[in-house]
C-alpha cells in the first residue's frame, strides 16, 4: 500500500475525526493536488515548523482566505497552461470555511473557479478552545455558548452549507462523514473529476470538543448520520441524486446522550422539550431528503 499523502507524526488528538477525514480525502485526491488550508486544528497539527505532514504542495495563508488563495493558484496554473490534471483544494474547518472565510469563498464559487472546497466540520472553533461557530448544532454546549441557569447552550441551528452551495449553482455538492470512509473517498474522486467549483461538507467528530472517548469517533459520526442530524446527500446540477437512507429511525437521544456537550439535556428542568426540538430538526431532514426508506 502506498504511503499516505498525509504523513503520521502530526500532533492531532487521539481519535481526531478531522485528521481522519483529511487523510482519507487527500489520499483519494492523489499526488497531483495543491492544497490551501485555513488556520485551524488541521493546519496547526500538521505544519509546525520545521515539520510538515503534507506530501503534496500545501499552503497555509490566513484563517479566512483559503477560497481566494485557491482561486489564485488555479488562475496561475491556467495562465501557465498547467491546470490539466492538477486538482486545487481549498479546505479548512467550520470556522475558516463557513464563518470568517465564507464571504470570500462565496466569491470564489460565484466566479466558477475549478476548485474543490471542503469543510471539515467539527461544529465549533476547536483549535482556539471549543468556541461556538455558525455550524454548532442547536443546544450544543461550547465555551462561548455554555449551558447554565438560563441557557440550554447554543440557541441556533446549523447554517445549511449544502443548500448555500447549491444556491451558488455549483455543479456538484455533497455531504459525507469521516465515519463513512468509502463514501468520503468516492465523493472526493467524483468531485475532482467535475470541472468547476465543487463542495463537500465533511462531518468530523471531535472527541475532546464534543466530550466522548477517542475510540468512539467513528461510532458517534455514524449516529449523527443515522439520526439524520447530519444528512449525507449528493446534489448534482441542483438535484438531489443520492442520499444515505436507513430502514429504521434512530432517535436523536442515542446520538446526544454519549456526548458531554449535550449531557445537560438529560438533567431534567425542561430539557425534554429541547430534545423534542432537536428531534424536529432531524425529522425535517428526513422529510426533505427522504432519509427513511420503507423496506
Amino acid at each position, binding site marked *: 500500500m502506498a504511503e499516505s499523502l498525509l504523513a503520521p507524526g502530526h500532533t492531532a488528538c487521539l481519535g481526531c475525526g478531522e485528521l481522519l477525514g483529511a487523510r482519507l480525502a487527500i489520499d483519494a485526491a492523489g499526488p497531483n493536488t495543491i492544497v490551501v488550508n485555513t488556520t485551524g486544528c488541521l493546519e496547526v497539527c500538521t505544519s509546525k515548523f520545521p515539520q510538515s505532514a503534507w506530501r503534496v504542495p500545501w*499552503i497555509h495563508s490566513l484563517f479566512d482566505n483559503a*477560497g481566494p488563495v485557491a482561486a*489564485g493558484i488555479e*488562475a*496561475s496554473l491556467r*495562465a501557465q497552461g498547467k491546470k490539466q490534471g492538477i486538482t486545487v483544494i481549498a479546505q479548512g474547518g467550520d470556522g475558516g470555511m463557513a464563518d470568517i472565510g465564507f*464571504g470570500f469563498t462565496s466569491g470564489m464559487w460565484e466566479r466558477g473557479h475549478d476548485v474543490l472546497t471542503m469543510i471539515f466540520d467539527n461544529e465549533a472553533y476547536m483549535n482556539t478552545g471549543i468556541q461556538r461557530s455558525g455550524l454548532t448544532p442547536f443546544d450544543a454546549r461550547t465555551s462561548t455558548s455554555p449551558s447554565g441557569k438560563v441557557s440550554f447552550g447554543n440557541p441556533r441551528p446549523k447554517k445549511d452549507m449544502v443548500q448555500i452551495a447549491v444556491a451558488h449553482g455549483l455543479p456538484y455538492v455533497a455531504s459525507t462523514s469521516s465515519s463513512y470512509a468509502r463514501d468520503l473517498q468516492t465523493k472526493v474522486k467524483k468531485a475532482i473529476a467535475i470541472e468547476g467549483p465543487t463542495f463537500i461538507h465533511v462531518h468530523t467528530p471531535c472527541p475532546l470538543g464534543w466530550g466522548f472517548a477517542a475510540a468512539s469517533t467513528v461510532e458517534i459520526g455514524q449516529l449523527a448520520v443515522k439520526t439524520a442530524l447530519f444528512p449525507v446527500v449528493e446534489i448534482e446540477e441542483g438535484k438531489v441524486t443520492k442520499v444515505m437512507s436507513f430502514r429504521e429511525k434512530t432517535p436523536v437521544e442515542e446520538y446526544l446522550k454519549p456526548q458531554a456537550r449535550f449531557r445537560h439535556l438529560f438533567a431534567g428542568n425542561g430539557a425534554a422539550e429541547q430534545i423534542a426540538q432537536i428531534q424536529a430538526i432531524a425529522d425535517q431532514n428526513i422529510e426533505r431528503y427522504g432519509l427513511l426508506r420503507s423496506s
Partner: protein
Amino acid sequence: MATAVEQERKIIEGSMAVAEIVKRCRPQVVSAYPITPQTHIVEDLSQFVADGEMECEFINCESEFSAISICLGASATGSRVYTATSSQGLLLMTEVLFNVSGLRLPIVLTCANRAVSSPLSIWNDQQDSIALRDAGWMQFYAEDNQEVADLHLQAYKIAEDHRVLLPAMVCMDGFILTHAFEPVELPAQEAADAFLPAYDPLVKLDPEQPVTMGAFADPNYYMETRWHLEYAMSQAHAVIEEVATEFEQTFGRPGLHVIEEYRTEGAETIILGLGSMMSAVKDTVDELRDEGEAVGAIKLRCYRPFPEKRLIEALQGVKRVAVMEKDISLGKGGAVCTDLRAALYDLPERPAVTGFVVGLGGRDIANHTVRACYQRTKQGSGENVWVEMREDLLEPEMVQAWKQQWE
C-alpha cells in the same frame, strides 16, 4: 544619455500609464476590486485583456481582501501578478499584506493614495500607504506620471531579485496623478522584456516538487524569520541602486535612486517630502533661490526600506529641514518626520527638523503652502505643525492648540 532601446511617447492619463507599463511587465494573473481613484487603472487593463493585447488571467473579484489573496495564491504558484487599490481597500488587505511579505512573495501593487475614513474622503493624501509601512512591503513614491511608469518596471525587478524577494507598493497620488494627462515615454515590449525577464521563483507550489508554505512558528523560530525580512530590507538598498543605475543606462531617464536631490548645493534649508507635491516644492525652491534663499529639496522616492544612509549623506552641513508630509500618525506626528529625526539622532552634528502635516483629505498644496513651511522652519524646529487650517471651523481651544505649534 544616448539609448538604443525603442520607446514611444504618449499623452495619456496617469492610470493609463500604469496600465500600459503593467501590460509590458507581463503579469500572468491580475486581480483587483474597484475603488476611487484607482478604477481607471483596472478598467484600462480589462480593456487590454478584452482586446487580446494582454495575456493574463484577469479576475474581477468581490473585495480587495480577495484580490490580494488571489494574487498571493498565484504568486505562490510561480506567477508574476498585479493588483491596485487605495485607502479603504488597502486597509482591508492589511492582514494579507503582512502575510505576503512573510511568505516572501514579490507582488507589485499600485496604491493610488487616498485619505482614510472616517470621515469618508475620496481625495488624495498618503495616510493609506504610510499606515502600512510596518507590513514588510517596499514603498516607492512617484512625483509624476513618467515616474509612475518607470517605478513599476523597476519595482518588479527589485522585488523579484532573489536577494530581496519582498513585495513592493508603488504609490501615486490619487486624482493628482491617476487622473492627470501627461506625456509619458513607454518602453517597447522588447525593451521591457530585456530589462525585466520572466519571473523566476525561488520556491513554488508544484506537484512535481511538493513543499509546505506558511508553517506556524513557535517562539523557538519566529524571531529569526522576522530577521529574514529585516535582512532582506537591508539588502534591498544595494539592489535598488543597481536596478536604478541599469534603468538609467537603458532608458536614459532617472532611475529609482532612493532619493532625488534638487538644488541642494550650498543649501542651508532643505524641504523634504514624497510624491506629487515635490513638483510644487521644486517650483517654490526655484522662486526662493531667485530671491537669494539658500534652499533646496530632497524627494524621497523610497520610503521603505528607509534610506537612512543616503539621507545622512545628503543632509551633511544642512542647518534645517522642513519635512512636508500628507500623513499623520495620530498621537505622535508625521511618520516621515519621526523617521528622519530618529535617523539623525545619533549624529554629533545634525540639522534642526520641523515636521509639517499638509494636504490631508485632498487639501491643495501650492507654492504658498511650501513658503509657509519654509518661513516657519527658519524660526526654529518643531513637530506636528499642521499647515493652512480653516480656523473658522474649529472651536477656540482647538485653534489655540494648533497655533502653539506655529510659535
